[in-house]
């Protein structure tokens, strides 16, 4: 296993680079209170819209808040959104996928339900849910979680269909091992890698989608810094204070890119047959 890992990493220096960048982003976000030179919420109206300098590395926004510090703190929220969406879509997706894959009688219905959920374009469904529930962090998490769950469900279902026909799983069933134990012991263990691959992509899409919702004014409370709300607030200053949109924008690109590189690398590393069905 270690040999394979090393070989793959040697082949794909980009994967290594992606993992490195991702690690730095996570560390910076977690350690934001230690690293940030300023209080991200402190207003200083007299020093508003200052360009990047030694005092404010990324400049200041329209309230005179330090953009560097806000970008770090925003990273926490953006990563939290990503993780929360992965968690919610993970739970829904795995349960639906297992039900469909393991119980042929349920499959016809559950598979259609998955198809139906897939039919809603992601932002559109999120927009409608926000209309119904009102904009908040929780709504964004739930909406995006529901949106991405069917992707995962499809992968889980497809893999489960293969796994349940494997000789030793059939043997276990013949021996009367309870279904939940088969699922726990054999199926989930085999599913770990395709799920992990999907999750890295969902993580990346969730960060992008949150930014999109914030851009439309339907995302989290704009007082909370996320990369999305920062761009949304800064777009009125393009051409005048470009640093307000450039830095959080680069943060999004870096995070999404490194996540996808890692996901891509994982996909190649783990069973390629199961992972390709994106």
């Amino acid at each position, binding site marked *: 296993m270690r040999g394979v890992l090393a070989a793959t990493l040697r082949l794909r220096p980009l994967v290594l680079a992606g993992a490195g960048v991702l690690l730095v982003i996570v560390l910076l976000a977690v350690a934001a209170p230690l690293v940030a030179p300023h209080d991200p919420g402190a207003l200083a109206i007299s020093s508003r819209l200052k360009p990047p300098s030694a005092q404010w590395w990324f400049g200041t926004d329209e309230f005179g808040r330090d953009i560097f510090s806000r970008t770090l703190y925003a990273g926490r929220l953006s990563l939290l959104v990503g993780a929360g969406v992965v968690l919610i879509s993970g739970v829904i997706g795995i349960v639906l996928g297992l039900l469909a894959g393991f119980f042929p009688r349920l499959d016809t219905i559950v598979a259609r339900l998955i198809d139906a959920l897939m039919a809603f374009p*992601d932002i559109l469904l999120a927009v*409608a849910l926000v209309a119904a529930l009102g904009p908040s962090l929780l709504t964004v998490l739930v909406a995006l979680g529901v949106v991405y769950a069917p992707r995962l469900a499809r992968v889980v279902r497809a893999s489960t269909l293969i796994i349940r026909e494997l000789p030793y799983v059939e043997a276990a069933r013949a021996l009367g091992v309870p279904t939940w134990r088969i699922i726990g012991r054999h199926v989930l263990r085999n599913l770990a890698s395709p799920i992990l691959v999907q999750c890295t992509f969902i993580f990346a899409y969730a960060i992008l989608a949150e930014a999109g919702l914030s*851009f439309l004014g339907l995302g989290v409370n704009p007082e909370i810094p996320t990369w999305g709300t920062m761009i949304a607030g800064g777009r009125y200053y393009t051409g005048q204070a470009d640093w307000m*949109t450039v830095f959080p924008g680069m943060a999004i690109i870096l995070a999404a890119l490194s996540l996808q590189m890692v996901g891509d690398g994982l996909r190649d590393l783990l069973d390629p047959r199961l992972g390709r069905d994106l």
Partner: protein
Amino acid sequence: MSYVLRRIAGMLVVMFFVVSIVFLIVHIAPGDPAVVMLGPGATAEQVAALRAAWGLDQPLFGQYLLFLRQLAQGDLGQSIFLGQSVLGLLAGRAEPTFFLTIFSTVIACLIAIPLGIYSAYRRNSVWDRLATTLAMFAASVPSFWLGLLLIQTLSLQLGWFPVSGYGGPGAGFLARLYHLFLPAVSLGIYSSALILRFTRASMLDVLGEDYVRTARAKGMGEFRVVMKHALKNALVPIVTIVGMTMALLVAGAVITEMVFGLPGVGNLIVSSVLRRDYPVIQGTLLVVSLIYVLMNFLIDMLYLVIDPRVKY
């Protein structure tokens, strides 16, 4: 033939789920839509009358049946804010979204398919790595951010393109396409990533097949091998993904239409959310998702036509 029938039955079940989900989303909205729509000046009697008119005073299941009955008659209701039928509104907004979707798909294909073919052909070369990394990069850039950038440079600094709108009343077809160019680019670049990835993967599959090796062994030119034998067979999955991407583009169009001020379906739904125009939100969501389901079905049917190997 029985496959087609089975597929149609499946599609109808999916559509039923879609309709039910849309109904649920709109009806879990807390608060009373009648109060929202009548505004601050409304009296209790006016609210009660509107609730009765909409059937809101009935139990949820009764409302659901009413909703299904109206839907079966092709009635999507009336917009509260604009006072027009939802179906009419959607028809009026369909054009920019339709052309934006087509246009950006064309752009995405023009970028992605040649690059994907070349990547697969020169597998694991520097060019392959570069192309796949570029694809990932394209999928990492928020489309509205790219849109702002394009407006700032190509429209404002260079003055090559209009920054917003759809040409205004009486604009000709070419003028409208011209207005769609930047939106289509910002959207197309984003979706080119997925198409490139799939083109590459399916070309890789095909290039490893026996008949390709045979063609090569017979001394056929490389270009002909790749373009004729391999591409022809890789086309089915590519067409699938292009079709699916088009459906996904509708979601991307929501944001792009806002950035570029295009009067399309995406613009309509965002404005409707801000105006609390629930019938429009419901109708738009319903129509867009049903079109997606229908397209998926048509793609499946297309398989039967273009790929004789697919047998069910």
